[in-house]
């Protein structure tokens, strides 16, 4: 009961902050509001009993992102340029994306239901991983065999991010040599 009402209160505050972020014109104020958003989000995650996610949200969203945004503000400008194109098309894209996400949500199993796939399959990994995969370490067998494609996707993302950072650093150094 208390949990539900706290969740609703925080969700309302999140909605207000989101509208504020969209409406505010000064980019510096937007950065501050984004930090507030992250702290509220982390609190919401804790109320929903996802402490590890809350920790990540607070560290990345409120901590590092604020510093990165400030660095970006220093390199660019603190005032938002007036929009060049109309605002109709971005609105349509955002609405379609939101609709697709809500539609996808309807396919999720019910919260706390015992019929979730996670409770029906995979609970016996300890017993069958050795005969299935032949890997003695169960964690490794889950990561590299049962969820192999998942891990491949994650590795691709990290690899892409690493290449992006390398390219950026390389360009910076070349520019300095040229000047």
């Amino acid at each position, binding site marked *: 009961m*208390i949990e539900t*009402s*706290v969740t609703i*209160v*925080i969700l309302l*505050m999140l909605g*207000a*902050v989101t509208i*504020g972020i969209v409406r505010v014109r*000064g980019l*510096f*104020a937007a*950065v*501050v*509001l984004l*930090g*507030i958003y992250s*702290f*509220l989000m*982390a*609190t919401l995650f*804790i*109320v929903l009993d996802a*402490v590890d996610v*809350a*920790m990540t949200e*607070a*560290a990345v969203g*409120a*901590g590092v992102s*604020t*510093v990165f945004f*400030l*660095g970006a*503000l*220093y390199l660019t400008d603190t005032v938002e340029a007036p929009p060049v194109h109309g605002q109709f098309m971005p609105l349509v894209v955002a609405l379609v994306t939101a609709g697709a996400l809500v539609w996808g949500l309807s396919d999720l199993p019910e919260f706390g239901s015992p019929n979730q796939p996670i409770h029906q399959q995979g609970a016996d990994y300890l017993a069958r991983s050795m005969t299935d995969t032949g890997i003695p370490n169960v964690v490794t067998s889950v990561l590299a065999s049962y969820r192999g494609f998942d891990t491949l996707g994650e590795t691709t993302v990290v690899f892409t991010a690493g290449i992006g950072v390398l390219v950026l650093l390389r360009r910076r150094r070349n520019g300095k040599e040229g000047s």
Partner: protein
Amino acid sequence: MIAAALFAVLAAMALVLVRALRGPTTFDRLLAANSIGNGAILVLALFGFLTDRPEFLDLGLTYALLNYVGIFAVLKFFRLGSLGAEAEADKS
């Protein structure tokens, strides 16, 4: 009792949020952001005691450190106009 305190803190956060959204100057927003960070820590602690898991207090400490780093970076940005890279470059 703890539930009442929890809702009081939430109400305080909502009031501070109004200042963050309407605040005429950036410093209003900044102070509001810091206060909301503190409110989040309080909610974390109170909710931990409410659900009989006071271990959440450790997380609160980490939140306080993060809040400090964020505000410190923002204030440094204000004072120097940058994150301090230029000042270090001048020294070397």
